């Protein structure tokens, strides 16, 4: 009897597999892509493999929906399916699908072999999905590594461009360094509380004295995670890496892994009730917003500009982490979703305009785009307005929720810094809009018509950006329910 019980404890049950169903689906499709790749000739493989990957990401969406019917813990309390993890699974899968749609054209124009690319995107998505459902620090570390290693390689995919390899190596070296910090933090946390389970850590920290080791552990973990989300002062890699990496990959790695790491950060900060989080985050948020926005002011390369903008947005997002859980968690979740929609969309436009070898990525190349391709310019304008935070776009409500959450936690100083920063930010986004509409093109930059895949990607991200700007209620209510679940 006893041994049967033991056996039941070590052998995973069917329910356990349901808890990681989306990850399984993504991994299987990734492997199918890898296996098929050598058997196909290069020309045909582009579309076919892309479609398989697309189907994979859509299947992961369906798996997430299925999985959401069976919330609970799995695999010896290492993963947990709750409405929080479902939210981020959904987000990651959706971003993956949109990025794959964007990549169709890009792969052909840049003549990149599609097989490994799509497989890596899917494997990366496995890691990101797992991050949002893992409630155990070691598993989180493994998931983080799965996601990171894929993105390291993806960053270097423009093999003909030296700058891409540079980007990949830089990202890899600094990234490994940062993950080591995270791992060290996990070890210290284990030392302080005797567990790597977030729930147990939370109980231990809430129950009594907080050992000094726990503070150090939190700080170290924050260094590792702060690097991944490009929060200042761990942001230095961002502009170089974003400049060198292929544009669709930048769209991917500036949204999906970030969203996943923000999910981890939410779990660590709020569920584990990380000690000393307020000042840590206060400083990082204020710094990120300021450094990001000031840095972006002087950029002439659109990819670098958006890199600094993403640092700034990480800062706005962190403001929500300094707020109270019941407002901060929904605000942060809403922000990640909105940011994903608008940023993926913006990079889709950039990857299209970039052309072969990404030659057209400076502000000058966008001159007169409003005349050459009014539709593309209008779409990019809407994404940029959303990044500024103008009403009827999702970006407005995202900032709005974050700042009002912070105000309810009486963080007036941080809100003032944030508000001033968004005023500064409007300048450099506006610069791009001005260039597109109010300058005439000095030299003819060819803009090809929008292909089907890219069109679909743009339509999805545009629809999401505007939907969140007009009717943000449903998503926010969902996020608020999640936060309430946690509080129980």
């Amino acid at each position: 009897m006893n041994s049967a019980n033991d056996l039941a404890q070590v052998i995973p049950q069917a329910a356990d597999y349901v808890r990681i169903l989306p990850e399984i689906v993504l991994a299987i499709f990734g492997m199918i892509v890898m296996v098929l790749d050598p058997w196909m000739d290069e020309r045909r493989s582009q579309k076919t493999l892309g479609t398989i990957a697309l189907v994979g990401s859509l299947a992961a969406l369906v798996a997430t929906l299925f999985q959401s019917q069976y919330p609970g813990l799995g695999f010896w309390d290492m993963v947990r399916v709750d409405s929080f993890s479902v939210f981020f699974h959904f987000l990651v899968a959706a971003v993956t699908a949109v990025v794959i749609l964007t990549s169709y054209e890009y792969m052909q124009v840049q003549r990149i072999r599609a097989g490994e690319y799509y497989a890596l995107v899917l494997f990366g998505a496995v890691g990101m999905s797992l991050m949002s459902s893992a409630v155990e620090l070691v598993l989180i570390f493994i998931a983080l590594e799965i996601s990171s290693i894929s993105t390291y390689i993806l960053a270097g995919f423009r093999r003909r461009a030296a700058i891409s390899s540079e980007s990949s190596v830089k990202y890899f070296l600094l990234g490994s360094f940062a993950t080591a910090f995270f791992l060290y933090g996990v070890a210290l946390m284990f030392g302080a509380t005797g567990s790597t389970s977030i729930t147990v850590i939370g109980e231990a920290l809430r129950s009594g004295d907080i050992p000094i080791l726990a503070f150090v552990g939190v700080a170290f973990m924050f260094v590792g995670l702060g690097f991944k989300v490009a929060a200042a002062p761990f942001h230095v890699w961002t502009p170089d890496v974003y400049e060198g990496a292929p544009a669709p990959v930048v769209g991917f790695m500036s949204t999906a892994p970030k969203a996943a790491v923000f999910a981890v950060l939410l779990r660590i900060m709020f569920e584990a009730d990380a000690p000393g989080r307020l000042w840590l985050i206060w400083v990082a948020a204020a710094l990120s917003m300021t450094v990001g926005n000031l840095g972006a002011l002087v950029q002439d390369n659109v990819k670098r500009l958006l890199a600094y903008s993403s640092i700034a947005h990480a800062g706005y997002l962190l403001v929500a982490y300094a707020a109270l859980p019941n407002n901060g968690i929904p605000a942060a979740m809403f922000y990640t979703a909105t940011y994903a929609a608008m940023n993926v969309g913006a990079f889709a436009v950039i990857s299209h305009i970039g052309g072969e070898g990404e030659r057209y990525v400076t502000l000058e190349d966008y001159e007169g785009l409003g005349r050459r391709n009014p539709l593309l310019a209008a779409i990019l304008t809407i994404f940029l307005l959303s990044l500024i935070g103008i009403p009827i776009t999702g970006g407005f409500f995202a900032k709005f929720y974050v700042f009002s959450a912070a105000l309810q936690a009486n963080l007036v100083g941080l809100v003032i810094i944030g508000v001033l920063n968004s005023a500064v930010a409007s300048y450099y986004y506006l610069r791009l809009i001005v260039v597109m509409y109010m300058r005439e093109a000095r030299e003819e930059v060819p803009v090809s018509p929008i292909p089907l895949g890219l069109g679909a990607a743009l339509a999805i991200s545009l629809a999401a950006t505007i939907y969140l700007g007009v009717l943000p209620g449903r998503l926010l209510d969902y996020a608020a329910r999640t936060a309430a679940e946690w509080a129980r």
Partner: protein
Amino acid sequence: MSTALDNSMLTLVTFIPLAGALLLLLFPRRDRDIRLFALVVSLLDFVLSLHLPVHFQRGQTAFQYEVNNQWISNPNIHYHMGVDGVSMWLVVLTSFLTPLCVLISWNSIHERVKEFFILLLVLQTALIGVFVALDLFLFYFFWEATLIPMALLIGIYGHGRRVYAAVKFFLYTMVASMFMLAAILWLYAKTGTFDFVSIQTAIHNGQVENFSGAALWLFLGFFIAFAVKVPVFPFHTWLPDAHVEAPTAGSVLLAGVLLKMGTYGMFRFNLGLFPEQSRSNASWIMVLALIGIVYGALVAMVQPNMKKLIAYSSISHLGFVVLGIFSFTQAGLDGATFVMLAHGVSTGALFMLAGILYERRHTYEIAEFGGLATPMPVYATFFLFIMLASVGLPLLNGFVGEFLVLSGAFRDRAVYGVLGATGVIWSACYLLWMYQRVFYGKVTHPVNLSLPDLSGRERAALWPAAAAALVMGVAPLLWLNSIDPAVQTALAPFAQLVGKVVGR
């Protein structure tokens, strides 16, 4: 009376231009059809907006034509619209000026025509939305929404330094309205609602915690956003640039309506939500207003550029409005509202006239003209009429408002009235002098001899403005009897304040 129509009237008036703009998106690029369609849409909107004053209950003080539906549950945002006597006329002013803008842009815009009229109609929706919104969030939403089409109109269709002017305009307003947003968020955090009326009641009954400490900052947060828009004296530098570079229709709406968003905001929100702070800050605000009146007029006098001159005259005229609002007297506020409307009509028309000249000569320099009355007699007559309305000749619209403002200011403090009154003299000086230099004397530049006089379309754009200027001057009561109750409501808390101070 059909209440269903009354209830949906504001929604219709606000969103018909937007619907028109969306339909324009689908239009083929046949410029003539596009212009015609824009004209039809804006005229339709004007006719509908006339429903508001016709069925307005004049004795009533509450908001009318109200709609109040929940838009977003969290945060608690309502689609709450309604008008009182003040905002109703501003709505009508907006819908009155837009068809004129379409007419005046008929030939002057010949590139990217479709985009131009789409932007114009979108702008109209946003402007009307600002005046009818009674939910602070909705208000902010429309407030920011006016920025983008206006900046694009300036930046794409403007003259030489258009990009600089557009960016300056955008940044000034954007940065200033951030302060208002912060104040709105604070109020929401404390009261849990964006509803103007609820917040007003909560503040009035002292139900907002920590209000006394924050009130001054909140007042200033709103005030700075509005002051930049008006513009009040030290914040005015964006205005001349924006006006000089803007296309004619942009200038007309900018001077005619956009600036009134600021004064309307002061009336509705600064006075409405923070009566005590308005009272205690009134002295320095009135001084700024007076500086604006005199400074604007003096700078206008020395402008060599006709459009810049009119732009500075706007600063001067809007100074009257601010002066009237912060005099807290019935006459002052009635007058302020009336100046808003009158200035919208007459300065709008002045910008149209300047635009007509620019179309012919491609310059605004006064020195380039002279003796224009000879080749363009009809034009000169229109110009004279409108200019006299702007100067404040009795029986024309400018007089009524300025007279009321000055009598209100005089009652508040005699020196304000006296100083303000000099503004009227100055305005006669700079406008008449400009008129003399442009229209009288010999034709100094031979090019000007062959300038064609007004076309039928241009007359069609100017006649309504001239007629409105006359009717407003002869029968101001048509307007004032609906403005009056709204002003009384706004002033109610001030009467109590005085009562508190005096101890009655």
